[in-house]
C-alpha cells in the first residue's frame, strides 16, 4: 500500500484530507484516511468501491459506481452515499501523476451538529482548512438566533394581544386616524358608543363620516396638530351615532410613530361626557334660574333697602326739625332769655337739653349708618393739618372731660403733619372714640389721642388711649356691631346710642382704613384707626386717581351753595350743619370770628351764618372786618344769636350783616332765608 504521488507522506496527507480515499483502475479501494475508516466500517482496503458507496444524483435513483461515468464527469462534485450508514461524502476526483490511481478528496456532508453526533464525528476529525465546521457553527448560531427571533415574535405577539385586549376592553373610545384622515383602528367601546362596528369604520374618513358637522373644523385642527407631533391636545367632539343619539366625547390626541420615528397616524383616546354634559346643562340652567331668582330678590331687597333708607332719612329730617327747636329753646331758657329760672326749673331744662342732644346724636348716627349701608355716603377728600383735626375733635369732648377731671393729651407724630381724608368724617370718627374714652374712664383718669405715621406702609394711625374700665376679650368680637353696649348695666350707667363704634368702623372702611382695639379690663383700652396715607399731597394728587375721580364726581354732585357757619358751639355747628347739608348746601365751619374771616378769604363761601358771641374775635368784629373788603361786598352775612336782646339786630345790621336771626332758629325758616338771599330755589 503506497500513498498518493505527492511530496507529502501518508500521515501528512491524511491530516490534510482525513476523509480521502484512493481507488485503482478496477475501482478497488487501495487507501483511505483513518477518520473515514473509523466512521465508515463498510470500507475495506482492496474491496470494490461499489460495495461501500453508491452514487447519489439529484432527480434520479442512486447509481452503481462505474469508472467510465466518473471519468466522464470528473469535473463535477460527486456525492457518495455509504451502503452501511447514513454517511454521505461530498467528493472531488483528482488524478495525480499515476493515471491508474484515482484520488477522492472531500468531507462528510453534514447539515447540523446532530448529524455530526450520529456519525460519531468530532470537530477535531475535520481538517483545519475544512469550512464544514464553520458552516455547522454558522448554522447552529443562526438556528439559535432564529429561535430567539421566534421567541421574541411570540412575546411581541402576546404583548400585542394584551395591548389590543386592553384597548378593546378599556372603557374609553380609542381610535386611530391615518395621514389621509382614514380610520385605521376602532375599539369596542367606540363601537358600543357610536353603534358603528370596526368593519363599518375602518377605511372611512373619520371627520366626514363620524364627526358631527359642528365639531368637524375643530377635529381637523386637532388631527393636523397631532400629525405634526403635538401630544395630548384635547377637544370636546360631538360624534355621529348610528341611531342619531347625542354623543359628546372629550378626545385627547397624540401622534403615533413607526419604528423610524415617523408619524403615521393620530391616536385619539376619549372620554364619554354626554351624561356629564347633560348634568352640566341642567346645572347651568338651575344656576341661571337661581341667579334670576336672586336678581329678583336682590332687586326687591334693594327696593326695600331704598325704602328703608328713604324712610330713615325722612324720619330723621322730620325729627331733627322739632328737636332743633327743643334744643334751641332749652338753650335760650337756660341763658335766661325768657326770664330767670328757679334751680328746679334749670335742672329740668338741662335734662330736656341733654336728652335732646342724645336723641339728636342717635338720629345723626342712624342717618349716617343708613347712608353708608345704601352706598350713598360720599366723601369730600381734602388735605388738612393732623393737629387741627385732632384739636378740633378734642375740643368737642373737652367740657365733659373737664367735668370728670380727666387728663387729656395729644401726641402728634411729626412725620405725618398732614392727612388726606374726608376731614368731617375723620373728625366724626375721632369724636366718637374720644367720647367713648371720656365716657368709660373714671374721674381722674387719662385720655390720650396720638398719631403714628408708618412711612414704610403708607399708613397713618390715630389711636385713642384711655385708662378706663376696659373690655373683656370675649366681648371684643361684638364690639363693632350696631346697637351694642356690652353690659346692660353700662347702658344705664353710661349714656350712648350703641351706634358709635359701628359707625366708626364703617366710616374708616369707607376711607380704605381699618379699626383695631386692644383692651384689658380695669386697665384701659386702645382704639386705633389706620387710614391710607401718602407722604405728600402731590403724591396723593398724582397717585390716587380713584380718589380724584371721586372728588370730581362729588363736586359735580355737591354743587350747592357753600355756606360758612361760624359758631363756637359744637352742637350748633352739628345741628345747623347737618340740616343744611341735608338740603343740598355745602358747609364749612369756623369756631371764632378770626377763623371765620380767614376761611371766607380762602374759601369764598356763598353765604356766612355768623354767631355774634364767640371767643378771640366776636361776630360783630368779624362782620365789620369782612365788610371792609370790597371784593366780599356781595356775599350775604346772616347774624345768628341767642341773646335776642333789644338793639342786637341794629348792631348787626350796622356792622354789615344782611339779616338777623335769633336763636332758637327755626331751621326751615333759616333755609328759606338763605335761599332768599342767594336767590336760589329748592333743589329739583
Amino acid at each position, binding site marked *: 500500500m503506497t500513498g498518493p504521488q505527492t511530496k507529502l507522506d501518508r500521515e501528512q496527507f491524511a491530516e490534510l484530507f482525513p476523509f480521502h480515499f484512493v481507488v485503482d483502475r478496477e475501482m478497488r479501494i487501495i487507501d483511505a484516511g483513518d477518520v473515514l475508516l473509523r466512521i465508515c466500517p463498510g470500507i475495506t482496503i482492496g474491496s470494490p468501491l461499489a460495495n461501500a458507496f453508491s452514487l447519489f444524483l439529484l432527480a434520479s435513483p442512486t447509481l452503481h459506481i462505474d469508472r467510465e461515468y466518473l471519468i466522464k464527469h470528473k469535473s463535477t462534485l460527486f456525492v457518495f452515499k455509504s451502503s452501511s450508514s447514513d454517511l454521505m461524502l461530498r467528493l472531488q476526483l483528482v488524478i495525480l501523476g499515476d493515471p491508474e490511481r484515482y484520488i477522492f478528496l472531500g468531507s462528510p456532508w453534514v447539515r447540523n451538529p*446532530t448529524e*455530526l453526533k450520529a456519525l460519531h464525528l468530532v470537530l477535531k476529525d475535520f481538517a*483545519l482548512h475544512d469550512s464544514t465546521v*464553520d458552516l455547522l*457553527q454558522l448554522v*447552529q448560531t443562526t438556528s439559535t*438566533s432564529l429561535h*430567539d427571533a421566534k421567541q421574541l415574535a411570540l*412575546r*411581541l405577539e402576546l404583548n400585542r394581544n394584551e395591548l389590543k385586549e386592553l384597548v378593546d376592553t378599556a372603557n374609553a373610545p380609542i381610535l386611530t386616524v391615518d395621514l389621509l384622515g382614514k380610520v385605521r383602528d376602532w375599539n369596542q367601546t367606540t363601537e358600543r358608543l357610536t353603534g358603528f362596528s370596526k368593519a363599518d369604520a375602518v377605511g372611512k374618513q373619520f371627520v366626514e363620516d363620524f364627526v358631527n358637522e359642528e365639531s368637524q373644523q375643530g377635529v381637523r385642527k386637532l388631527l393636523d396638530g397631532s400629525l405634526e407631533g403635538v401630544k395630548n391636545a384635547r377637544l370636546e367632539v360631538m360624534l355621529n351615532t348610528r341611531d342619531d343619539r347625542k354623543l359628546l366625547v372629550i378626545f385627547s390626541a397624540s401622534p403615533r410613530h413607526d419604528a423610524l420615528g415617523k408619524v403615521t397616524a393620530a391616536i385619539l383616546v376619549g372620554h364619554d361626557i354626554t351624561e356629564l354634559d347633560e348634568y352640566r346643562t341642567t346645572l347651568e340652567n338651575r344656576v341661571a334660574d337661581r341667579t334670576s331668582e336672586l336678581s329678583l330678590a336682590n332687586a326687591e331687597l334693594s327696593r326695600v333697602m331704598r325704602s328703608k333708607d328713604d324712610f330713615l332719612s325722612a324720619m330723621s329730617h322730620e325729627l331733627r326739625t322739632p328737636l332743633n327747636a327743643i334744643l334751641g329753646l332749652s338753650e335760650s331758657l337756660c341763658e335766661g332769655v325768657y326770664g330767670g329760672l328757679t334751680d328746679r326749673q334749670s335742672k329740668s331744662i338741662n335734662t330736656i337739653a341733654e336728652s335732646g342732644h342724645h336723641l339728636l346724636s342717635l338720629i345723626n348716627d342712624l342717618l349716617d349708618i343708613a347712608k353708608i349701608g345704601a352706598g350713598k355716603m360720599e366723601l369730600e377728600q381734602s388735605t388738612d393739618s393732623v393737629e387741627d383735626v385732632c384739636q378740633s375733635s378734642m375740643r368737642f369732648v373737652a367740657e365733659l372731660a373737664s367735668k370728670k377731671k380727666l387728663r387729656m393729651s395729644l401726641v402728634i407724630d411729626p412725620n405725618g403733619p398732614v392727612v388726606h381724608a374726608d376731614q368731617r368724617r375723620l373728625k366724626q370718627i375721632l369724636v366718637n372714640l374720644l367720647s367713648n374714652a371720656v365716657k368709660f374712664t373714671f374721674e381722674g383718669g387719662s385720655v390720650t389721642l396720638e398719631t403714628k405715621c408708618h412711612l414704610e406702609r403708607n399708613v397713618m394711625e390715630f389711636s385713642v388711649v384711655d385708662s378706663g374700665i376696659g373690655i373683656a376679650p370675649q366681648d371684643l368680637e361684638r364690639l363693632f356691631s350696631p346697637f351694642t353696649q356690652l353690659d346692660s348695666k353700662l347702658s344705664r350707667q353710661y349714656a350712648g346710642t350703641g351706634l358709635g363704634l359701628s359707625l366708626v368702623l364703617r366710616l374708616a372702611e369707607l376711607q380704605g382704613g381699618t379699626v383695631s382695639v386692644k383692651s384689658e379690663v380695669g386697665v384701659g383700652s386702645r382704639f386705633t384707626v389706620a387710614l391710607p396715607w401718602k407722604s405728600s399731597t402731590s403724591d396723593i394728587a398724582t397717585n390716587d386717581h380713584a380718589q380724584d375721580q371721586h372728588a370730581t364726581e362729588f363736586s359735580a354732585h355737591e354743587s350747592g351753595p357753600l355756606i360758612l357757619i361760624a359758631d363756637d358751639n359744637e352742637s350748633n355747628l352739628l345741628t345747623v350743619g347737618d340740616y343744611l347739608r341735608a338740603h343740598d348746601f355745602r358747609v364749612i365751619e369756623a369756631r371764632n370770628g378770626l377763623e371765620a374771616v380767614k376761611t371766607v378769604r380762602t374759601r369764598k363761601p356763598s353765604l356766612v351764618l355768623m354767631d355774634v358771641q364767640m371767643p378771640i374775635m366776636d361776630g360783630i368784629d368779624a362782620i365789620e372786618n369782612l365788610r371792609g373788603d370790597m371784593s366780599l361786598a356781595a356775599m350775604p352775612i346772616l347774624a345768628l344769636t341767642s341773646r335776642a336782646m333789644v338793639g342786637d339786630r341794629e348792631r348787626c345790621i350796622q356792622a354789615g350783616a344782611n339779616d338777623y336771626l335769633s336763636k332758637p332758629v327755626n331751621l326751615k325758616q333759616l333755609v328759606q332765608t338763605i335761599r332768599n338771599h342767594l336767590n336760589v330755589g329748592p333743589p329739583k
Partner: protein
Amino acid sequence: MHGMINKSIEDLVTINFGADKWEAIKAKAGIKVEAFVSNESYPDEMTYGLVGAATEVLGLSVSQVLFAFGEFWVLHTANKGYGDLLKSAGRTMPEFLDYLPLFHTRVALIFPNLKPPRFECSDRHPDRITMHYFSPRPGLSAVVSGMLSGVAKLYETPAEITQTQFKDKGADHDEFLVCWGDSIKK
C-alpha cells in the same frame, strides 16, 4: 457583546431568582430591550450595566455574579445554544479545552463584530493544562473561572481551577491552571 451573553444573564436570573428580579435588574440598568437576540451585537456597557444591577438586586458580589454566569453559560446557555456542536468539540474535558482556542477563532471569523476573546493552551499534561485568556474587556476573569468550572461539570470531571496570572495586576493577560485526575490527588 454577543446577544447570547445578555440572554444568558437573563436566563440565569430568571431561572434562579425569578422573572420579577430580572425586570428589576433591567429597570435598574435602564435597559428597554424587550428580548435579546443571540447573534446580535449589543454595546458592552449594556452587559456591564446588567451585571452591576444584578449585584445590587441579588445582593451578590461582582465576582460571585460573574463566576455564576460563567458556569451557567457553559452548562445552560452554550449547551442549549450550541448543543451537540459544543459536545463535538471534544470527547473529554481535556480535548474540549484543547479545542477551545479554535472554537473561538471560528466564532470570530463568523461574527467579526463580536470581538470574542482569544484562548490559548500551553503546558498540556495528562492531568493538567494551562489556559491563557486574552480580552480587551476588563474585569471578566471570574467569568472564565466559572466557564472552566462549568466545562468540568459538563464532562463530569472533577477539576480544580486556579488563576495563576492576573491582567488587573499588571500581567498582559489572565492565566488559569486547570488540574484533574492525579494532579488533584497530589
